């Protein structure tokens, strides 16, 4: 390792309260500097520099899918084949790439120019199919665009292939600046009403902010819908330890692509929200844990943070109010489970992303053993509105117990897939209309990200999109990622693709999830290939029922529930495939 590289790693390490946290960034850095992979000798050097045993460094490196241990092509083409991508024709793109590069998935061209891989959801569900090339995304890929991409890469040029992503907002809170040019800059953010809430917040006592957020009844937008203000009030007090705020920007739930709309197009909204939240809970340091595939969005955030620091909105003595606060962007490395808050904390500590046992909860023992609040991007980005306009104004939007605006990401078989900001409590039909209507006849819909039970067209009739109504209708609002399937969709194939995702993403720590996901995948694979029996279907359902509530973290439930729903609700379609 060169002294410059060592110096850069030292610099990264100095941003964290614990040196170990620099392990993931260091591996990213070394990988980028050495042809896209980190070999054993480099790994040992990184381990020594950070001060961890080689075994642990390897455990970390091999846990995350973005870390390569063997050489890859100059251009690593990674095609998202998860459900939204599958519905948009990603399989054809993969086949096209295999033909035109004359390699199979997992291989590298003999000239070392291209490696082709398939990957899990890249959070581009509205602009699928998507191909990640090294650190960037190529979205809305058609066969023509794919040809153009390959032709350009052969010339050694990463082309500029603009995308037209659809969006809309009736609330103008979270997607207010989505169409405004240059909204990532501090100047534009300010001109459009930004940084008005921060001075209001800093003029109040932290407890008043917590009370206001509690009064707004805002429920966490990460999936579980837990009231944010209540969570904040659970923080362990007078521990003599620092308190940390973490923004969960892992956005890994298939079908979900909402948080990136905020980070990519309105980063200061998140920064302002996190600064107010940090002030309210008594933190002096906040982290944004962003998924590794969003490297360029991390750069947008870094730039905005630097600008905010320059303008005195972050750093020492913010706005002359005596409050010190800063933000660190921590980039993950490809692991869905790291969206689970305790796995995220482990990952941020530089470890394998294995969820922790609860209790204790992060609000008591979190990052580095200190009281920690983890909130989703959308939750934190809602805070400035609550502080500026008051809880009452927030509760003007939405329905009882389900207040506020929500970004719905709509993908699959709709004419204008994209992100749409509507009040909670909006009928599904309205959202589907906003997205241009169903392309074909609706067969089924998954309304809250892949981990929630699928609804048949009949069940989705009249569905109201908020936490309580979805629960009443036998599903969950989850992350608000809506995946629409028309009559051409094969539910058994969706189920197989879904369980493969979970089997790939399971951290492997606990038996029912590790072995169970793998066993269900084996059974469904047999069924879809026409080698299964009705008894296999019964086994799948039985296994799913047993796994629910038996695993260490909610991931077991996250696959057992939707798979069980698919097999039971569309049993005829599965049964038609068996021997």
């Amino acid at each position, binding site marked *: 390792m060169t002294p410059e590289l060592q110096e850069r790693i030292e610099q990264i390490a100095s941003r964290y309260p614990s040196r170990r946290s620099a392990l993931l960034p260091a591996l990213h850095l070394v990988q980028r500097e050495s042809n896209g992979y980190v070999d054993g000798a480099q790994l040992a050097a990184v381990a020594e520099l950070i001060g961890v045993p080689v075994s642990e460094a390897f455990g970390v490196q091999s846990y995350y899918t973005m870390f390569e241990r063997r050489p890859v092509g100059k251009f690593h083409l990674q095609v998202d084949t998860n459900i939204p991508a599958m519905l948009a024709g990603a399989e054809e793109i993969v086949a096209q790439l295999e033909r035109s590069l004359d390699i199979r998935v997992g291989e590298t061209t003999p000239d070392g120019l291209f490696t082709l891989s398939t990957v899990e959801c890249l959070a581009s569900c509205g602009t699928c199919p998507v191909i990640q090339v090294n650190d960037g995304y190529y979205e809305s890929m058609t066969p023509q665009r794919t040809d153009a991409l390959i032709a350009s890469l052969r010339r050694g040029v990463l082309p500029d292939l603009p995308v037209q992503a659809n969006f809309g907002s009736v609330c103008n809170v979270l997607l207010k600046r989505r169409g405004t040019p240059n909204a990532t800059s501090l100047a534009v953010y300010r001109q459009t009403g930004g940084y008005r809430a921060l001075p209001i917040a800093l003029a109040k006592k932290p407890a008043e902010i917590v009370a206001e957020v509690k009064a707004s009844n805002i429920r966490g937008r990460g999936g579980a819908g837990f009231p944010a203000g209540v969570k904040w009030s659970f923080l362990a007090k007078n521990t003599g330890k620092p308190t940390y705020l973490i923004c969960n920007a892992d956005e890994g739930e298939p079908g979900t692509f909402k948080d990136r709309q905020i980070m990519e197009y309105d980063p200061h909204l998140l920064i302002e929200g996190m600064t107010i939240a940090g002030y309210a809970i008594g933190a002096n340091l906040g982290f944004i844990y962003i998924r590794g595939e969003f490297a360029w969005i991390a750069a947008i955030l870094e730039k905005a943070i630097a600008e905010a620091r320059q303008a005195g909105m972050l750093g020492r003595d913010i706005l002359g109010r005596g409050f010190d606060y800063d933000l660190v962007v921590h980039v993950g490395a490809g692991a869905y489970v790291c969206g689970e808050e305790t796995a995220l904390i482990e990952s941020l500590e530089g470890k394998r992303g294995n969820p922790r046992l609860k209790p204790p909860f992060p609000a008591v023992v979190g990052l580095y053993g200190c009281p920690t609040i983890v909130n989703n991007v959308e939750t934190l980005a809602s805070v400035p509105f609550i502080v500026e306009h008051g809880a009452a104004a927030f509760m003007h939007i939405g329905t009882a117990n389900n207040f506020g605006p929500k970004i719905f990401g709509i993908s699959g078989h709709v004419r204008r897939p994209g992100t749409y900001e509507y009040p909670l409590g909006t009928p599904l039909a309205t959202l589907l209309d906003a997205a241009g209507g169903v392309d074909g006849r609706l067969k089924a819909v998954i309304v809250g990200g892949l981990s929630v039970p699928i609804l048949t067209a009949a069940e989705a009739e009249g569905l109201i999109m908020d936490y309580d109504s979805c629960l009443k209708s036998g599903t969950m609002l989850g992350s608000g990622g809506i995946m629409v399937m028309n009559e051409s969709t094969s539910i058994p194939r969706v189920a197989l693709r879904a369980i493969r995702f979970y089997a790939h993403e399971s951290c492997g720590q606990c038996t029912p999830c590790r072995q169970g996901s793998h066993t269900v995948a084996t059974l469904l694979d047999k069924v879809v290939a026409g080698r299964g029996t009705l008894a296999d279907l019964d*086994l799948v359902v039985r296994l799913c029922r047993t796994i629910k509530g038996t695993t260490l973290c909610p991931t077991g439930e996250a696959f057992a529930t939707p798979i069980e729903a698919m097999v039971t609700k569309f049993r005829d379609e599965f049964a038609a495939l068996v021997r």
Partner: protein
Amino acid sequence: MLSLTINDRTIEAEEGETILSAARRAGIEIPTLCAVKGLPPTGACRICVVEVAGFGGLVPSCSYPVAAGMKVQTHSPRALEARKTIVELLLADHPDDCLYCARNNACELQTLAQGLGIRQRRYRGTSLPIRLDVSSPGIIRDQAKCVLCGRCVAVCTQVVVNDVLEFGNRGAKAKIVCDADRPMGLSTCVQCGACVEACPVGALVFKEQMNCMPDGRMQTTRVTCPYCGVGCQIDMHHKDGKWIYSTATAANAEKQPNQGLLCVKGRFGLDFQNHEERLTTPMIRKDGALVAASWDEALDFAATRLGEVKAAHGPDAIGFLSSAKVTNEENFAMMRLARGVIGTNNLDHCARL
């Protein structure tokens, strides 16, 4: 103190104690797999899940703290079904070669499966072909049999703190690795064997176990390790008078100096006892040649000669050199012999040389 009910019995428990610990104290057995005595629970295997009234999901008894008024069912149909399914899932990927396994009849997976009444294979996995790792001098690793309980990792990193073993990869591809996935013999492993003793199945076994099927002729004798003065207690497993392998004495392990651990010498170094050149009787040099003698004969001879030297030249003509290879008690006895019986301070110990 607080009270809760387990299987409808009222039980007193300490604040902060786990359900498992309270249940065991009350004589209620809940099986576990990943738990390592004395180390924090990982809650990973989920075998110990129990049903607690008011909880939606099952609760890992190994790590979940008791609470006043809690109502626990350790063997409810739901808990039993979960436990059974977990073991079946472990067996789904497990090779069917118990008969050839060094741990046959001494295997925790077998015991669990039998206890839960598993009589058929409902699930079939697709276990990856994994080769045996025979690279190290004393230990054979068979990852195909690994149940990923993590006990070996826990002892290697938290008890002996050698930091060799770790989990690699994730999900169904997860496996235990040595260093950066090196063969054990090429890793930083010091062959202490703690991981082998921690392994519930046949994934880690001593090489010599493979050459000797356990049967009725197998015997265990407790000995004190002859290598250094720590006095580690060893259970020597031998058959037909031949040493096969050693484990740290399990009985009252926490009261032993080695507390269930051994180093590479005590673990693998007892094979000398069957060596042809090993001295098995005292020898007395007669007419320039060493001749076998009885203990009485040898001790009489030594006592007489020491007495003669002392009478002729005084006690300080004699010096005593003791050894780290004997126990502290034996070193103490040597000191008493030198100072009390002979009357000299010419006494030293090989560890100072």
